[in-house]
């Protein structure tokens, strides 16, 4: 093989590897529709689950459960995450306590989700006696989401030019006034997109839900935070692995389409939004 030919072969191999990511993404969506497309209908989305007659059953309760989980996780983890990010970027000097916090955040991000499940089981379900419930699941997934939200928050806060802060402080503003009126308005949209991405990832988790709260079947919707609840990922899991109906797998695929539709919709909107912001502010930041 001549040099230019092998050169081309290598570069093509590298390019193909990168394109494989796109291939995987498309293949996943394609296969889901191939297996679950026929089970997908308006009834499937808007009916309650029906154990005996799976062909009449719908996933409305699981959709509502997953959305309730999303709202709950957002409400718990975003305020704490944003406040932590503000502390780390705006207040903290490089002391041992800051190093400890950063070390904790990095390690939290690497803890397996099933271990978060064990933590939630021991603390929220057992010790705080919340039982396997929506609230226990919200708190468990919030702990898991927290490090992602802090990292996104820090990144967003760092895009605010230092000169803005110095200007405000020089004019006599206090640190809090500077944060409240100058830094936060500039970085809020970035922090929120990061937060929404984090929450959308959290609600796709199944393993912790097995331990702290989801159920496969219930009458109606949860009426309070201490009720059990249904969730799309857990529903997909049970249908795929533990349901006797011969068509269960296509209903699992249909449930997965609803779940991935929810997650990808959120991601798509945010990617588009980021793309537009980047185009607008290109050169201003860098």
């Amino acid at each position, binding site marked *: 093989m001549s040099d*230019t030919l092998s*050169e081309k072969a*290598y*570069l093509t*191999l*590298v390019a193909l*590897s*990168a394109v*494989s*990511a*796109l291939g*995987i*993404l498309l293949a*996943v969506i394609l*296969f889901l529709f191939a*297996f679950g497309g026929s089970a997908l209908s308006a009834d499937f989305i808007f009916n309650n689950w029906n154990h005996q007659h799976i062909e009449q059953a719908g996933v409305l309760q699981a959709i509502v459960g997953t959305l309730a989980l999303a709202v709950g996780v957002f409400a718990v983890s975003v305020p*704490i995450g944003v*406040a*932590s990010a*503000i502390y780390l970027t*705006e*207040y*903290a000097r490089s002391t041992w*306590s*800051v190093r400890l*916090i950063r070390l*904790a955040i990095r*390690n939290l991000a*690497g*803890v*397996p*989700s*099933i*271990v978060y*499940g*064990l*933590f939630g089981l*021991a*603390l929220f379900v057992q010790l705080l006696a919340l039982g396997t419930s929506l609230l226990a699941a919200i708190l468990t997934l919030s702990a898991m989401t*927290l*490090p992602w939200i*802090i990292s996104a928050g820090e990144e967003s806060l760092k895009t605010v030019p230092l000169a803005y802060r110095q200007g405000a402080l020089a004019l006599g503003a206090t*640190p809090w006034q500077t944060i409240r009126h100058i830094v936060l308005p500039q970085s809020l949209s970035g922090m929120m997109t990061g937060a929404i991405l984090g929450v*959308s990832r959290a609600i*796709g*988790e*199944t*393993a912790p839900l*097995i*331990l702290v709260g989801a159920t496969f079947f219930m009458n109606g919707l949860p009426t309070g935070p201490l009720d059990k609840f249904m969730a799309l*990922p*857990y529903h*997909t899991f049970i249908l*795929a*692995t533990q349901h006797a109906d011969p068509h269960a797998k296509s209903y699992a695929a249909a449930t997965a389409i609803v*779940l*991935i539709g929810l*997650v*990808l919709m959120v991601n798509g909107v945010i990617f588009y939004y980021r*793309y537009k912001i980047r185009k607008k502010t290109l050169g201003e930041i860098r």
Partner: protein
Amino acid sequence: MKISEKHIRIFFQANGILSVLVLAGIFGFLLINAIGAFQTITLGEFFGTTWNPTSYVQPQWGILGLLVGTLLVVAAALLIAVPLGLFTGLYLSNLASPRVREVLKPAVELIASIPSVVLGLVALLVLSPLVASLFGLTNGLNALTAALIVAVMVLPTIASLSEDVFSAVPDAYRQGGLALGATRWQVLRRVILPSSLSGIFAATMLGLGRAVGETIAVLMVAGNALAFPHGLLDPVRPLTANIAIEIKEVVTGSTHYQALFAMGLVLFIITMAFNVLAELVLQRHMKRLGA
């Protein structure tokens, strides 16, 4: 009392410290429950080869079979994901035109946001029949199928970290190579790759940490047999899958329950060790390139 700047600062600091408390809490709850298990089980039994906690005759608490299951899946997954991820990072950082990048980079990131259960389902429906027919097996629920899907899951982690690592190579290196008459591939192969070795190592370790912790997708396709595995085509039950399978069946506070927490502690320590290692190596690497 008027809220002063000091109070505000303390409020933010308290939120920051909460992360430390959560990490300490995770470790603490795992440890407390795990210690309970070792009042009945000896360490020797815990690191035995057979896991059979519900035996009527003599319960056995050995996690080695499960640990080998984890290692088989993780090793095979990395064998696929590391080259693929490195090439993806190389392409995104050095070769792709801005327009191609604008499409491929989100695609890689989107893979990370596909829920684990969805990938597990696709593996169950598509990969496992494929593996079964390729190797003439009655079913494709084994370590290899699990490894294939775990490879997909850690690909984004390895690809984005190695993209950062390759982008951090100073431009002067590349320009120097090209000025000396090297081709684009020669520059990648002889300049960019060698100067990124420790970063590549860090990316691999981070991927390893992720792979060890994967639960649901693995549980769906690994076969979950308790027999000690001897190869990639054997059904395996990795540690994560075992916890998820058994935790709902055990009596709270029983030895079995506590042994599952001990297993969680093992997972926690393994993943933490690889994450810390990755972090340290990466920091040193980036600092050296920056200097």
